[in-house]
């Protein structure tokens, strides 16, 4: 994307003239605010930024961004982003989606966009419910969750989004929380800076149909003890007293207290977001409250050529190879194979 003239833009520049239409108190407001705050940092002129969304409450975000925006159809945003980025490598493409949009109807496109390493930054608003359609179960709803479509509780094992995208070899994987503004901004910043398919899960509160879905561990009062903020190259420490940590026992992570029965800093699992092997992310993604603190931060960030880069490479390569044989002549192309002339 062009870094050419670096215009000094502010949050205001990224606010559209549409008034925002989410329920009062919805977590989406904060996500929108952080998005608008983060955009100026990339030094990308706003006409080169595109927000593509599917359908859902989350899907309305592009209307509120004063950039190019495309509110597409349910579950297919990733496919449109794939075509757009392939056609226009110069653009910065963001995809906004929900847990139903990305994991239910859109699950297949998600996997394939990730394995292709399409250079898009996908933010998934995970509220563990279908908001726009007024409260049905989503693929992240916990077993037993009673919703309009599951009055006796769901009977389906939920999908762990980050484990799934790791299986699809996503090159950037992160998680944050709607109300943890600074952290969310940082994650957006990191996602935006990554070259390749970035997947950012945002734990979002739907106060109307699934209020408090994450509160147990995201609440300000408890988050230090119940969430683990991953930091690259640092041992996994958490807790209000910063005295708890994660140790690996074989493949099994376990919670330990530093100083207690001989556990020292050195024993802790040190995070490495650049670990080429996605296994680490898959283990971290399974850590969940109350057994574990819930990890947030950048799980994975590995370099890999993007889909559009590889596509262009092939084209440039083919052009060069062809150029060696002289200029391309369409007339010749049409006449390829046996021809004959009638006088």
């Amino acid at each position, binding site marked *: 994307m062009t870094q050419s003239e670096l215009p000094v833009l502010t949050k205001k520049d990224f606010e*559209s003239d*549409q008034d925002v239409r989410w329920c009062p108190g919805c977590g989406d407001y904060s996500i929108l605010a952080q998005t608008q705050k983060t955009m100026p940092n990339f030094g990308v*002129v*706003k*006409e*080169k930024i*595109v927000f*593509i969304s599917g*359908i859902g409450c989350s899907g309305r975000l*592009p*209307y509120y*961004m*004063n*950039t*190019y*925006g*495309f*509110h*597409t*159809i349910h579950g*297919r945003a*990733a*496919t*449109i*982003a*794939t*075509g*757009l*980025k*392939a*056609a*226009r490598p*110069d*653009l910065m493409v963001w995809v906004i989606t929900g847990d139903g949009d990305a994991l239910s109807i859109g699950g*297949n*496109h998600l996997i*394939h966009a990730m394995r292709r390493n399409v250079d898009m930054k996908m933010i998934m608003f995970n509220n563990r419910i279908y908001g726009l359609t007024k409260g049905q179960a989503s693929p992240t709803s916990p077993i037993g969750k009673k919703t309009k479509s599951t009055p006796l509780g769901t009977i389906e094992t939920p999908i762990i989004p980050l484990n799934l995208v790791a299986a699809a070899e996503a090159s950037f994987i992160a998680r944050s929380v709607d109300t943890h503004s600074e952290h969310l901004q940082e994650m957006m910043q990191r996602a935006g800076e990554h070259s390749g398919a970035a997947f950012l899960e945002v734990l979002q509160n739907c106060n109307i149909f699934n209020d408090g879905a994450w509160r147990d561990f995201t609440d300000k009062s408890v988050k230090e003890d119940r969430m683990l903020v991953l930091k690259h190259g640092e041992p996994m420490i958490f807790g209000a007293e910063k005295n708890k940590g994660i140790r690996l026992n074989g493949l099994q992570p376990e919670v330990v207290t530093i100083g207690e029965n001989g556990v020292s800093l050195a024993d802790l699992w040190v995070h490495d977001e650049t670990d080429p092997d996605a296994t680490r992310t898959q283990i971290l993604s399974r850590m969940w409250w109350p057994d574990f603190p819930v990890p947030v931060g950048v799980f994975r960030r590995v370099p890999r050529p993007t889909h559009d880069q590889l*596509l262009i490479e*092939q*084209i440039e*390569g*083919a*052009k060069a*190879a*062809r150029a060696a044989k002289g200029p*391309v002549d*369409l*007339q010749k*192309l*049409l*006449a*390829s*194979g*046996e*021809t*004959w*002339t*009638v*006088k």
Partner: protein
Amino acid sequence: MTTPSSGSQHGSVTELDRVTIRFAGDSGDGMQLTGSQFTATTALFGNDVSTLPDYPAEIRAPAGSLPGVSGFQISFSSGDIHTPGDRPDVLVAMNPAALKVNLGDLVPGGAIIVNTDAFNDINLRKAGFAEDPLKNQSLQGYNLYEIPMSTMVAGACEGLGLSSKQVELTKNFFALGVMFWLYERSMAGTEKWIAEKFAGKDAIAEANRRALHAGYAFGETTEIFHTHYRVAAAHLPPGTYRNITGNEATALGFVMASKLAERDLFLASYPITPASDILHQLSSYKHLGIKTVQSEDEIAAIGAAVGAAYGGAMGMTTTSGPGMALKAEMLGLAVMVELPLVVVDVQRAGPSTGMPTKTEQGDLLMSMFGRNSDSPIPVIAPATPAECFTMAIEAWRIALHHMTPVVFLSDAFLATGAEPWSIPNVADLPSIKVENAPASEKAGFRPYQRDPETLARPWAIPGTPGLEHRIGGLEKLDELGTVSYDPDNHHRMNLLRAEKVARVARDIPPTEIYGEATGDLLILGWGSTYGSIRSAVERLQSRGKRVSHAHLRYLNPLPTDLGEMLKNFKHVLMPELNAGQLRMLIRAKYLVDAVGFNLVRGKPFQIGEIEAKAESLLGESVEAAK
């Protein structure tokens, strides 16, 4: 009359003006290759040719089995022809199964050339012959030529140090050699091909060359053929020609469209028979800057095409019936956001998976109406393999100038059938370029402010300063393009979307009529039925019938001159390879009592069938036909 005039002297020559040959054998016998070699040589010789391959759906059915039979039919003539011929005059049958499957189509008294070596007990049983048809009387009434081809090539290839299996594989070139002699064709083209194809594999190349010559020599020296045949070159209009299939012409047409529009071409597609070859061919044009993606499914494919179109490229997708069905919802989005897009549906026999390799015209109504709510889209259809080139460019011209998705309806027959194509002069082709909306200083850009003439909205692509805006699938406020639930606005926008497509009719050529502008019968067709209808009409006219032919390339919107045209005929007959899809549109729009002729057998109409149907109509009794 095209069968050998028996009794004539050996070496004598019979003049014919048209011959239809079918090469048939096991999938492993290389019949498609043999057919295309004969085609290339025959086209080069200057005949007008039309071909129709017919291979089994199974990847490779068991050797010698009936489903394993692969056929290739070629019709060539000294006059111009429009179809691969109703029924072959000559059948080359490499094994019993091939004979069994194809005998029924052969004209009475037609010639049969068989490889007797393949007529052993196992093969006869596999083909379901109680007894050897070569031995009993069942082939009386045909001219049977029995040649031990395997034996002959074995002899010819001695000393090349090839396995007998390898040698056996050359027998199709032997058969080809025989046919070359029989129809006075040169072996040069095929020899060249062999040299290139088997470069490095000298023994193999030599074996095939020898087999070819052995076949030719066999025709010349043996007594078995009493004559050979001459089909003089046709008088095609001057120009440089090549033989081309519909899929090849389609792919080249899109390459040309991109050149004429001066925009990048982007294809996202999911493989499906019989459309895959377009993806394959365009994928091989990376050096032309064409971007192709094999998507995870048909929805992703059209999604990516829409994304590319949104970005200012010529985004397109190719598919066949079942895949087309999956694109419905995304096509609806394209209608709502009014982006240019071309969707190719190479129709095949349905419903559902149906008969994937067979042809049909069953997707017209799906293309017209297969989306939620009123969602108008222009639909066009080429009439012949070569015409796929022109219509591919037309599809893009309409899409770009009217800012709309366009459906391009080909079918399996057009896609795999071939005909000589007079290669156009690239320099002569008109530009179809359109401009993007220009950058703007002042606020308040209106993404749905329409061109007063075409009602097209501006193409405001990301990256353009000052035009930042949002679009989507929700109803839009007229001009402004913001989300609107206003009842009257919704009604107005629906009318505008419909009118925009209707106005495409201002922008298409008048409908040609072949024959008188008034008469007893108008045969109205579309798509690949062109050849059969035109040939039938030629015959009817030659018998003095007041019959004319009109063939629609533009199915939505319909040409404005059509209504008048229909009024000028006593009867209107509409042959379609479906249950009467275009007929329904015509009847509804013009309240004309068009009569249908509908056969869905997975193959083209035979000229004779249309002729007969027309005759019956002319002999009144329109009722019966209803």
